[in-house]
């Protein structure tokens, strides 16, 4: 199914360009059009399936429920900029941490419910779709080829933009990533959080024996 993730008919490309010109700097209507186009083109909105399929390091059998292969690549490119220096440089560990963070992003989004999932679908499609990635995000390379510096520059543009829609996109991307990363017990030490008090865990059998 993922043989042609970027393939779209020329007609749909024209439709997107017209929508873009009509609604200016990425109005909601335009985001909707990108999403519909991506949906019509078939595979782009299909969840990525088992973790083995997306090359995220050793698998624990996790099945992706929301993120597509394209989305996984997007976060693969963005996380080094979002999590930045908190990521280990050791390649295997780094791959593992990025992989498990993307997994938790997916698990979190799967609880968001249909309405917010649709909003995120629009945002991710906008960023994954070559034409809009270049025009709206001003990211020239496809995500697997984007450097951390380029990803950081993109995030910084959206953070400091005077356009609320881009600020909102920045918040969406960084919030789900930061929560999935810093909220995870293996990373608690990065915020100096010792975890729940040990004496309480000892005293609460439903936690101690979990």
């Amino acid at each position, binding site marked *: 199914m993922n043989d042609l993730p970027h393939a779209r008919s020329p007609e749909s490309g024209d439709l997107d360009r017209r929508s873009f010109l009509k609604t200016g700097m990425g109005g909601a209507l335009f985001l909707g059009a990108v999403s519909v186009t991506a949906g019509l083109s078939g595979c782009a909105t299909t969840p990525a399936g088992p973790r083995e399929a997306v090359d995220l390091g050793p698998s624990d059998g996790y099945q992706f429920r929301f993120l597509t292969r394209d989305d996984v690549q997007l976060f693969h490119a963005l996380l080094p900029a979002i999590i930045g*220096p908190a990521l280990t440089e050791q390649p295997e560990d780094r791959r593992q941490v990025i992989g498990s963070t993307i997994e*938790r992003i997916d698990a979190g989004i799967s609880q968001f419910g249909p309405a917010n999932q649709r909003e995120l679908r629009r945002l991710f499609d906008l960023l994954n779709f070559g034409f809009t990635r270049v025009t709206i995000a001003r990211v020239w390379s496809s995500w697997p080829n984007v450097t951390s510096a380029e990803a950081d520059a993109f995030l910084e543009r959206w953070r400091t933009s005077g356009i*609320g829609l881009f600020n909102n996109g920045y*918040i969406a991307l960084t*919030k789900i990533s*930061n*929560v999935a990363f810093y909220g995870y017990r293996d990373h608690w030490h990065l*915020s100096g959080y010792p975890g729940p008090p040990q004496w309480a865990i000892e005293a609460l059998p439903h936690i101690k024996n979990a």
Partner: protein
Amino acid sequence: MSLTDRIAQGLEAGWDVTDGATLAEDQTHEADVVVIGTGAGGGTTAEILAKSGLSVILVEEGRLYYQKDFKMDELTAYANLYQEGMSRVTRDGAIAILQGRCVGGSTTVNWTSSFRTPDETLTYWSERFGLDNLTPDAMAPWFEGREQRHSMAPWHMDPNVNNDILRQGCEKLGYRWQIIPRNVKGCWNLGYCGVGCPTNAKQGALMTTVPGALDHQARLFHGLRADRLVMNQDRIDHLQAMAMNADGVTPSGVTVTLKARHFVVAASAIGSPGLLLRSDVPDPHGRVGKRSFLHPVNATVAQMPEKVDPYYGAPQSVYSDEFNFKQGVDGPAGFKLEVPPLHPAVSAGVIPGHGQTQVDAMAGLPWTQSVIALLRDGFHPDSPGGTVSLRDDGSPVLDYPISDYLWDGLRQAYLTMAEIQFAAGARKVRLVHLDSEWYRSWAEARVAIETIAMEPHRVRLFTAHQMGGCGMGTDPKGSVVNGFGEHHHVSNLSVHDASIFPTSIGANPQLSVYALAARNSTRLAGKLAG
């Protein structure tokens, strides 16, 4: 799991509790009253009606989570216990909405602050909305009754450092501060109220009124979404409900029909107007979903010289009302000052940033203190609130434009919070705002705050208090229900939650909801028994 847990005990003893996810076929049930929602309003209503001998069915879209599930872990708690997996926002995404979605509703995950409705608010309601029998004197016995039922009392232990810094700053500046009453019994002072109390100390609906109702033969369906109230002529005939899968997010396709003599909607200030709109319940003046309020909240964070450990200890125990009603009830936007608990996931989600900035901000968490300001909305003509409407899929969404009046209040709140933190000895302070730097002194902060952009998305706004949308009043042209929560146009329909508030409260709303629901349910029980 030992049977010291109220819920585990009740289930063992044979409570009539059904998980919607286990239902394989469509079915119909009947009771005297169907109560939609199990939070502050629904739980209170169900217990009072069941104790008066009426048969009651409780309907909850969220699932039944209790002690065995409360493990002091943010990620699982936010995914399971909060609306939309903690991702609920206003329509444009500018305000994050923290709201419970589980048995007990928001009372299962709130921070236990228990305030009476301020006298100023009740007096304003009486004058402005004709709610003459909701005066402070008339309401006092209801507050008192609920304070006992939920074991509410000013927090008797020392505040944690996080809260004490608010006290210290107020002391230095001569601002009033007080100790917050909390609804807890045998509290361990852990600090995990927001992820479900692991010791059953919190006396929210989950530990009090819901068990009280179930002990009196009420039936509970959880994992069951109230879809539509169906009318027959001028009365509600039945509720059409959809069973949810065990994931809590997708309907299974099984429908449940619930018939009753009376229906009480207590599905929250977003859920209740949503249900009434979906049901097309008579609304000749188009009032349903209008005047929705939020207590919009902004925040500042400080780095303190001493360790704060803001994740431990009773999350809220000190507040200041110095600025709440200072300039009159309908003057410039007043605000209540409180303190939020800061665990790693919520901090990482709330404090905006990425890369090295975020690494540094998170590394400073043990020394981080935060103050929040809750703006009192709905009391001034320039604070008309927002509007709940339905998306294409029937789900409710709140559109909440932020007026210049509120922006002025939010800027004033930034100034006050930074001033208090520096007075308490903060090394540096930053606003929870996309453009904010760390400010090293109150003078530097003041200059920056005077000119910082007050715009949606740049100012990071939150709310844990949703109110209004089915407002009460004596005039049906301007309200949905009367002063007893009774629908103006449908005789067997009541609304018993924060959606009936005609303005915001000006304080954390749980006790206001408990008290009004108790009062209105007592009256309803009398009517239905007669």
